[in-house]
């Protein structure tokens, strides 16, 4: 990912020479129509990406719709201290962190395994089938996924409980028991996304020099050894990049699905920062307070990303920038 700077050195150097010269203005003037194309997107970015950043100041204010964002009174860190002192602070933080941490630990390696299986399958046709079928759930909407969970896990008519009963167990109300929330959330995520997430690994595996495998075969290395010593090291850069990206939205993963799966019976385990911002901010109208909580969430996220990126650069010389 660091190749961007080194690409096409002739163009870069000729361009910088031009810019250093006094013809910069002419350069810009001759390409005015390119800036004309950019006009609409730039305005959009200013309004819809940087606009909310400007609006974020209400996290430090007592926002009053009548006075507007700029006119409301400053209150400093009041909303933050209120949040940190609230009884639900630790619950929200723990749920947010644990759901994502367990997802990362359990769900992250599975696409790698799937990619290895797809590559090792002896029949090309079979591996194409496996790919196409595992990609399919990626395109199902969250609403439908949660609807399917309800139907499949229904205590009365769902086949999962049917199976449990067939083995003499008692039906479990999976979606209403708090302790089942995280396992179901994570495993259904795996079901939906493992195929799609394996694409990058498959691409990386295809890119590995086949001579390496030939040489290892000559030396008598078994299939497992070849996977361990050639395939895995070959895709480590991709693994690192995807890991960083995953941690990049660590605090936000699957917010819509959590919201849909949430009910009064599992709220103890399903209440995360982003759903709290939605229910308290948008439904109850506590804009300033929840903007502050949202800001807290984003800052943690950014810090995590920077830390992980730095670590990755030190350990494996692969990083986002």
């Amino acid at each position, binding site marked *: 990912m660091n190749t961007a700077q080194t*690409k096409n050195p002739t163009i*870069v150097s000729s*361009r910088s020479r031009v810019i250093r010269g006094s013809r910069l203005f002419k*350069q*810009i003037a001759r390409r005015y*129509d*390119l800036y004309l*194309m*950019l006009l*609409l*997107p730039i305005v*959009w*970015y200013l309004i*819809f*990406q940087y*606009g*909310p*950043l*400007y*609006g*974020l100041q*209400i996290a430090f204010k007592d926002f009053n719709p009548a006075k507007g964002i700029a006119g409301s009174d400053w209150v400093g860190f009041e909303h933050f201290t209120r949040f940190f002192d609230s009884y639900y602070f630790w619950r929200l933080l723990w749920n947010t962190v644990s759901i994502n941490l367990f997802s990362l630990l359990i769900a992250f390696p599975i696409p790698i395994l799937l990619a290895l*299986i*797809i590559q090792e399958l*002896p029949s090309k046709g079979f*591996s194409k089938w*496996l790919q*196409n*079928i*595992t990609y*399919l*759930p990626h*395109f*199902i*909407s969250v*609403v*439908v996924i*949660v609807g*399917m969970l309800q*139907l*499949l896990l229904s205590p*009365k*008519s769902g*086949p999962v409980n*049917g199976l449990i009963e067939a083995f003499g167990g008692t039906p479990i109300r999976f979606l209403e028991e708090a302790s089942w929330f995280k396992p179901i959330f994570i495993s259904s995520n795996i*079901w939906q996304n493992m*195929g799609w997430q394996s*694409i990058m690994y498959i*691409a990386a595996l295809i890119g590995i020099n086949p001579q390496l495998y030939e040489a290892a075969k000559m030396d008598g290395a*078994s299939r*497992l050894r070849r996977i361990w010593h050639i395939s895995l090291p070959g895709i480590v850069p*991709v693994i690192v990049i995807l890991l960083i990206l995953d941690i990049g939205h660590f605090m936000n993963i699957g917010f*819509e699905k959590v919201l849909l799966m949430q009910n009064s019976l599992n709220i103890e385990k399903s209440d995360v920062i982003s759903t709290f*911002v939605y229910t308290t*901010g*948008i439904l109850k109208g506590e804009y300033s307070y929840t*903007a502050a909580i*949202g800001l807290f969430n*984003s800052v943690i996220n*950014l810090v995590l990303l920077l830390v992980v990126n730095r670590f990755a650069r030190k350990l494996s010389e692969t990083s986002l920038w």
Partner: protein
Amino acid sequence: MVRGERLFNVVICALAAIIIGIVLYPLLFVVSASFSDPAKVLGGEVWLLPKSVTAEAYREIFRNKEVWLGYRNTIVYTVVGTVINIIMTILAAYPLSRPDLPGRKVLMLFITLTMFFSGGLIPTYLLVKDLGMVDTMWSLIVPGAISTYNLIVMRTYFQSSIPWEIQEAAHIDGCSNWRLLLNIILPLSKPILAVMILFYAVAHWNSFFNALIYMRDESHYPLQLVLREILMFSQSAAADGTVGLEDKILLAESIKYAIIIVSSLPVWIMYPFVQRHFVKGVMIGSIKG
């Protein structure tokens, strides 16, 4: 050695078969249940194949006005939204792909920064509200007009797949940048355009959260919100089991299976044809410029 090899193949094939089973089973179950007699479905008698085949649930959906209204709304939002997405993304991606654009690095920074830090839900909501977009279809389309990730993918494609020499030659022949974009770049970019249309369209088709916060009037609800009502909120009614209403409740339950199929059908029909394009899109994204 050879025996170990064969054993390895058997294990790998078995794993693959198990994975296919796990992925397909829930889908097959929903399809079968949607075509079965509701009483048998609720009794837990349907496992894999339909029991007492009937299309009553589908007939009921055809009679349901909300579903069709939602369907129509979603089609409108998806078409209008995707057209705007594509135009905006091209307008941003093409100039930024030009190595001879002064200020390109600064502009790219201005754009990529938004991927790592954003104002968040509440300020965005207040902004959309202030702009008077609430309860109009623009609230679903304009705030998400550009996906920065897609923009970068498209820019990478323009940079890496279209030879710069062609563009320079066109310039020497006196071709303006607009004509260059419309007559040369876009015709050469059909694969990436297909990928972008698909990415954006599926996202519009499946999205529900923006509609949840911005749409007040039920006649504006997209399909996913109608679905949410049917799938998630008719549950309590079914649990009551009031006598006399039993048939209705049975039907309400069986509709759930059928409506999952009806709402996902467009994407599933499209899927076999476009699957390789999606994959290509992800690959281009992974090259990154």
